[in-house]
């Protein structure tokens, strides 16, 4: 199989990740942060090691400010609902995934918060103006993706974060598509809360995600329960990470996620970006030459290594199905991001999305091009 659906989840995982996962099933099988027998302490230490790696990875000073979640959607829900206030207002970009859109929409339907959608442009002056126009007195936070999960458009999130801070507004970054591909430094980039999947560009197992809180931010919990600490207190503890980590964590997943981050650090996010982007640029240039193929790229934008296309007369799902007959795995449809498709007028057809990983080779892309040519004939 040629796997080109790495924006959904990376596959395969590095050998060190799968080995670590299997090994920790035997070696670190205890619950973390509870018992004090030898295996429990060693398991807890392993979780702490991944916490430190994640803090370093995202430029956060304090490992305790790294919260382990089960995916980026959960991180975003915790962040958005955590900072939401009655009568508050959010600003989101027009490239957001449903993990952001549905969350703010629910808050709106419940009469808790309202939200505005700001257009992402290739022109930074327009971006500033688009976001400035949306700011209200009661704006609590700006939530912006680092890159569109459909088209790969990189948002000017640093600029938007700076703008948010100048207006005393929190900035929440959805780093699902850029974590491990574009270096992120929360301190330098003015990011208050970062939400990232562990199973995408960080090469960890499914069921892992992180929520990183930069500083002392007043956040409500959306899940309460046992934390292994302050157990006599009926209320959730204030201390991080305990406040946001109720219940048994995904121990093996978190330990393996640490190995995934080691893997990314070994080759560097920049290095991985270069490799993937070279493949995507090659694909883009070749697909453009095929009659009946529509490639969704505007060279004025900056792009992450993700490419969307369609074949004239075929729904994106049909194209994906035909590609799967050639054993090529791609994602089609709306990719849970209707806003991005509205922006690009592709709601009706959806798009076929190609997303490579560190493990994708040029010959994989060559075979894809050959198959697209056949289907487009």
């Amino acid at each position, binding site marked *: 199989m040629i796997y080109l659906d790495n924006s959904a989840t990376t596959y395969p995982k590095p050998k060190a990740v799968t080995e670590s996962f299997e090994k920790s099933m035997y070696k670190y099988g205890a619950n*973390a*942060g509870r018992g*004090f027998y030898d295996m429990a*302490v060693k398991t*807890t*230490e392993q979780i*702490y090691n991944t*916490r430190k790696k994640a803090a370093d990875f995202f430029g956060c*000073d*304090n*490992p*305790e400010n790294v919260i382990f979640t089960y995916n980026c959607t959960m991180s975003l829900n915790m962040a958005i609902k955590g900072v939401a206030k009655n009568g508050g207002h959010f600003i989101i970009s027009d490239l957001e995934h449903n993990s952001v859109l549905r969350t703010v929409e629910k808050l709106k339907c419940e009469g808790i918060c309202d939200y505005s959608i700001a257009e992402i442009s290739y022109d930074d002056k327009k971006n500033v103006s688009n976001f400035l126009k949306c700011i209200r007195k009661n704006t609590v936070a700006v939530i912006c993706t680092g890159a569109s999960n459909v088209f790969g458009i990189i948002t000017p999130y640093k600029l938007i974060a700076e703008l948010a801070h100048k207006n005393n507004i929190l900035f929440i970054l959805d780093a699902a598509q850029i974590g491990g591909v574009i270096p992120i430094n929360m301190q330098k980039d003015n990011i208050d809360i970062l939400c990232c999947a562990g199973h995408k560009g960080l090469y960890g197992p499914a069921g892992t995600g992180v929520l990183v809180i930069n500083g002392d931010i007043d956040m409500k919990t959306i899940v309460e329960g046992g934390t*292994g*600490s*302050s*157990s*006599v207190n009926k209320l959730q*503890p204030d*201390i*991080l*990470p*305990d406040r946001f980590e109720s219940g048994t964590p995904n121990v093996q997943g978190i330990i393996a996620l640490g190995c995934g981050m080691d893997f990314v650090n070994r080759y560097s996010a920049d290095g991985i970006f270069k490799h993937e982007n070279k493949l995507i640029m090659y694909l883009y240039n070749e697909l453009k030459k095929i009659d009946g193929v529509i490639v969704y790229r505007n060279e004025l934008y900056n792009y992450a290594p993700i490419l969307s296309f369609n074949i004239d007369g075929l729904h994106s799902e049909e194209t994906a199905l035909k590609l799967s007959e050639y054993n090529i795995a791609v994602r089609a449809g709306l990719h849970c991001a209707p806003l991005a498709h509205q922006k690009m007028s592709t709601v009706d057809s959806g798009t076929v999305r190609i997303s490579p990983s560190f493990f994708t080779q040029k010959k994989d892309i060559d075979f894809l091009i050959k198959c697209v040519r056949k289907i487009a004939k």
Partner: protein
Amino acid sequence: MYKIKFSSVTHALKAKEIMENMGYRVKINKNSNPSKNEGCGYSIIFVGDINRAIVRLDMNKVKYLGYELIK
């Protein structure tokens, strides 16, 4: 010998690492009979200058419940 108590095991591990980097030998411990206010019951035990240690923990935003001389 001093014991520093924590309400969170993450902070206990962070403190252990910081103090090991200061050159102390540190042992992590779980209290056998923690009081209601002792949180998770985790503590670290070390021999050394408690004042230096506490200043360093504060600088690194480690949250501890208190400390005591135990021997």
